[in-house]
């Protein structure tokens, strides 16, 4: 059974993305063991897209995406020191692992079981950057207006 997915229709950018095909999140949910949910947000933490694993019973969207805005701010701060651009950030909680990926002005939030492979999730930064190129361009254009 394919993973559930919800599209937020309010944004023109997510409509563009829908037309381009949304296999990135589905593919990732199927490929990575322990991955519960994938969210694509803007820098303010507004969810543009989300995909949940078929067996995901949790209902904690707000919690899971609330850090996206914090990630956007952190990414800006870190870029000013010698470490330069943040590609991804993993936070290990006792009940879950949350990985944020920098596709600014988009933020990808991956929520997974606490013992999931963080390195593997962080290494997906490149894949998500490629898959979300059109959506990122659209959001950038919207932000410029």
């Amino acid at each position, binding site marked *: 059974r394919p993973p559930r997915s919800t599209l937020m229709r309010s944004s023109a950018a997510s409509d563009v993305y829908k037309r381009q095909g949304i296999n990135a999140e589905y593919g990732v949910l199927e490929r990575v063991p322990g991955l519960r949910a994938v969210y694509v947000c803007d820098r303010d933490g507004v969810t543009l897209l989300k995909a949940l694993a078929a067996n995901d019973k949790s209902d904690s969207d707000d*919690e899971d995406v*609330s*850090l996206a805005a*914090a990630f956007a*701010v*952190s990414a800006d*701060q*870190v870029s*000013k*020191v*010698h*470490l*330069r*651009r*943040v*590609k*991804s*950030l*993993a*936070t*290990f*909680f*006792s*009940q*879950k692992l949350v990985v944020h990926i920098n596709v600014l002005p988009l933020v990808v939030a991956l929520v997974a079981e606490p013992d999931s492979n*963080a*390195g593997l999730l*962080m290494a997906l*930064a490149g894949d998500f950057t490629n898959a979300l190129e059109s959506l990122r361009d659209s959001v950038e254009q919207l932000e410029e207006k």
Partner: protein
Amino acid sequence: MLFNRDGSLLATVGEDATAEKTNAASVSAIMANIWASFAKAGDAHVVLLDCENGRAGVTVVAGTLLLCLYGDASTPFGMLKLKAETLAKYLDAPLSQILGSGGGKDNK
């Protein structure tokens, strides 16, 4: 680097003392901010960052201090996390004693 929750650097050890010290003060302030933002969302025990020019790991020591280890971009994450957690565990007892008896004095 060892630092307070407000980002004040307490101790740093690195390959190049001069450059590291300059970087360390800025990095500790930023990492303290990051920890404050992400850890308040739940019971976080480690944060790992993958950046263009390096990788960093942050964890809590002695309940109130923060420990950050950072290396170049080829640093394996598993090793970084394990080292951070092991060092934090090792420093827990002595630092808890100092903090408990010192009442939060800065030791630079």
